């Protein structure tokens, strides 16, 4: 009885590719391709084990199939990369490689689907179900990226390989870290802090004046549609091409979400709670500190999270649009993309993403600390 249909079909496909298919386009099969023949037996073995694993109904069989599929795809990739050195440098892959590669990834995907639908709530099951598949999807995407760019022999000036990006991440890390530090600490953080401080101040003023609420809020929404592509050069002219102009961009993009959210948080208050405060004969000061401010906190943190993402991206775009001293992530991305070094571009983007996600999660952590009483954090 076949338990894991996806893995089973994948393994058969891989077997077909390895045994019958041509490894490089209009060339020979795997066993007859000099540089790659070493992979013949390992691949056959991995495929046979995958077939076996797909027949077993056990969580360990799923984990095994997952690993077998990934390792097999890895071996197939290497066996194809090895043909580079023997005169097939620009020849794309033949159907045999594609069958083997896709088949082995299918083995992994099938196993992953099985893992993610595990029933039962013991601890191991929960770990396998909740943490393995998300991690594996990331890995699979990287595999597909590497496989497609390698298999089609896409030149780096067109789209880089994962391995190229990885090499740059290793060899140029000191430069990229210096860029990141400059972008994040000098430009993003200074602008973010200033933007939030002034945003909270403006929010307080607007929230307690109904007149301004009607007059200012619509404009705040309109202002967010002013394109940064036009605004950044203007600020560059006013503040110079060094870090100050980019910090100014950061101030502007973080200011408006904060204003809007603070106003909303301070004004949308459950009337019942206000009545309760009145029943307690609370002074306006008490209403402010015990009700309005706590009520505004979740809104404020929501704005801080939104701003943390857009502020980073805006500063990077601003570095694009205000070419200044050639330091900083945006400058690195811009310069490398212009000279066709997409491996550096992607490495810098990886740093930007990483910082963005860390930044976002840091704010989320603060939110958890300061508003742990809020309903969205309560255990279900």
């Amino acid at each position, binding site marked *: 009885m076949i338990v894991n249909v996806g893995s089973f079909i994948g393994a058969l496909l891989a077997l077909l590719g390895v045994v019958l298919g041509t490894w490089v386009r209009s060339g020979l099969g795997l066993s007859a391709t000099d540089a790659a023949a070493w992979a013949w037996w390992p691949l056959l073995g991995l495929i046979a084990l995958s077939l076996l694993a797909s027949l077993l109904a056990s969580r360990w069989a799923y984990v095994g199939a997952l690993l077998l599929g990934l390792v097999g795809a890895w071996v197939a990739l290497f066996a194809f990369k090895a043909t580079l050195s023997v005169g097939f440098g620009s020849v794309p892959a033949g159907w045999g490689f594609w069958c083997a590669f896709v088949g082995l990834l299918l083995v992994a995907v099938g196993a992953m689907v099985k893992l993610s639908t595990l029933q039962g709530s013991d601890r191991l099951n929960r770990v396998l179900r909740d943490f393995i598949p*998300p991690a594996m999807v990331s890995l699979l995407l990287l595999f597909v990226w590497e496989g497609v760019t390698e298999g089609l022999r896409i030149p780096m000036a*067109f789209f880089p390989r994962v391995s190229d990006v990885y090499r740059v991440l290793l060899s140029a890390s000191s430069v990229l870290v210096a860029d990141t530090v400059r972008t994040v600490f000098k430009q993003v953080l200074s602008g973010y802090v200033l933007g939030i401080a002034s945003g909270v101040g403006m929010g307080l003023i607007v929230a307690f004046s109904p007149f301004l609420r009607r*007059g200012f809020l619509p404009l705040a929404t*309109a*202002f*967010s549609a002013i394109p940064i592509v036009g605004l950044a050069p203007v600020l560059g002219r006013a503040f110079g091409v060094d870090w100050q102009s980019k910090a100014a961009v950061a101030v502007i993009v973080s200011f408006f979400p904060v204003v809007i959210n603070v106003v909303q948080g301070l004004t949308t208050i459950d009337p019942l709670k206000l009545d309760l405060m009145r029943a307690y004969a609370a002074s306006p000061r008490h209403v402010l500190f015990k009700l309005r401010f706590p009520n505004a906190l979740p809104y404020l943190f929501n704005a801080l999270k939104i701003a943390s993402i857009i502020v980073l991206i805006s500063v990077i775009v601003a570095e694009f649009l205000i070419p200044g001293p050639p330091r900083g992530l945006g400058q690195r991305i811009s310069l490398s993309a212009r000279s066709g070094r997409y491996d550096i571009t992607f490495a810098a*983007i990886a740093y930007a993403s990483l910082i963005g996600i860390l930044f976002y999660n840091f704010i989320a952590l603060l939110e958890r600390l300061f508003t742990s009483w809020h309903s969205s954090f309560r255990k279900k």
Partner: protein
Amino acid sequence: MKRAFQNAFPLLVVLGVLFVLGYPFAFLLSYPLAKTNLENRDRWSQTTFEALPPLDLSQPATLRFSGDVDLEQGLLIQDQAPLQLPYTIVDNVVQFPSVAESTRAFTLVDFEGAIDGKNRVFRATEKGAGRPLYLNGRLLVAGHETPPEKPDGQRVRFSFSTTKGVFAMRGLLLTPGTDYTVEEGSLVLKEPAPLWLSLRTEPDWARPMRLSGEYVWADERTVVLKRAPAPGSTLQLAHSIVRWAQRLRGTVDGTNRTFSLLHPKLVPSDTQRRVYVDGRPLSAQGRPPHEASDGTRRAFTFPTAGGVITLNGRLLQRGKDYTQKGAVVTLSKTPAAHSQPVQRDYAIVDADQSRLVLATAPVPPSVVWAGSYTVYDRPKCGNSVFACFLSLPQHPAPLPHWVFTKAPAFLTRFPWASDRNVLRQVVYTARGTFVALLAGGAVGLLLAALFVLVRPLERALLPWVIASQTVPIIALVPMLVLILANFGIRIQTSIVPTAIIGGYLSFFPITIGAAKGLRSAEPLALDLMRSYAAHKGQVFFKLRLYAALPFIFASFKVGAAASLVGALISETETSNAKGLGFAILGQVQAGNVADLWILFFISSLLGIVFVSGVGWVEKFLAPWMHKA
């Protein structure tokens, strides 16, 4: 009516306040630029003081010079040396004891060319450009204006401050009608001005020139006069003539070496500066040593034994900073590599006071005088920060009323049929935004539905969806261009990149909002559906989708703004000339700030239109949501 007014009134008041605040805001943003223009000497105008030729040669026994100099502060020179004839200065007029001796002081060269009351072009028998010119013994005032455009072998149009007057080029007088015509305030030549091959030393006469004085040198030997001299006049070029030169202040006593020029704020880098002791010129340029400074060497050999030594422009004290033995100078401190010890005839000790230190103290009766030197005059922009602010060619932010006064002309600059018509560009960008919103909406809703229906997929893909928003899409545009070109799409005119970039930016809020909305069905309602034995699809379409509508519309409003930004970015980066983004880029590059801010207002208006458009669709599709 009253209600509408009550709603609009605060908005109008705030707009008015912002309008007024726009003035200090514009000033604030421009302040650093204005201050730099005021204080940076590089942006000051310069004045060159040269030895002056006499105004009038008709009375050889007396010489008058330009009225605004005090002749007592200078001396007469001839051929780069003090004049050896006796003279006295009475009432700011030079008087020679006898006529015979003073006439010897002038050598005048005559011109070729008929003086017939019509001819205005004369040719000197030797190189004359730059030398004074006399008509009937009266000094003529030179002066010309050159256009900002450079001849490139093809250009025929040159702009001048006025097109009235006399024009000349390359030794020729230009005749209106046959050589040039005047169009829209510029000079249009019949034949393109030839390219001057040596770009570095292009003289003024390689370009068309307008006479602003009485004459102009149209090439090295040819002079063009504004008015034809009457028959019988004499036109003479002064070959060797007495001039009046400024004396340097400072006592000549054999020990004093410090002298200062009459006018302060010397331009330190001026290589044309000429300072003389009697007939001996002092070089403005320094003499480098034979050896290069390599970070270890301290002794340097200079061409001569004299001179003062400067290091990186700073004057060194003899005995303290260096010792000298013949031509060999030994510094007390080892200079850094690539620093430049230089030997000079004199060094500037204080450029602001125009104070110099000579290498050797002149002994009486020598005179120290200046043949020519250049000083900073005043800021070109004006005398105050405010004047400099007003005169900025490119303000970072415009004065608010500019936006209104310039809007009509800007909006109607191009006819409706042209691709560069602003309204047409607005329509084009709106179309791109709409397509991008549709694309982003479709992807976003699909992902949200997948996330809700297949729970593991959400855990796997959500981190990637968030990470996608930290990727600066603008960085990937060049790659997008390559890939799309590979599929045969002409990137500059296609709407595909707009759809991709705008969709990329807008799918995120829609995915998040819609997923949250699809989950927000009330548990009671879900239980009801279960009790009806509804299957998954029915629950989705009959319950979840309706529960999600408020969230979906809210996130579409956010997505609409994101699509607009994406469309503008894509038009900028792909140079799609039909769109608003390209127009913004053009105004940024041209520095038309008022026009740029008009475009800002237009794009934020477009954003408001899109957001309220989504609200309108919401009212139409889900009217029950607005009943409460």
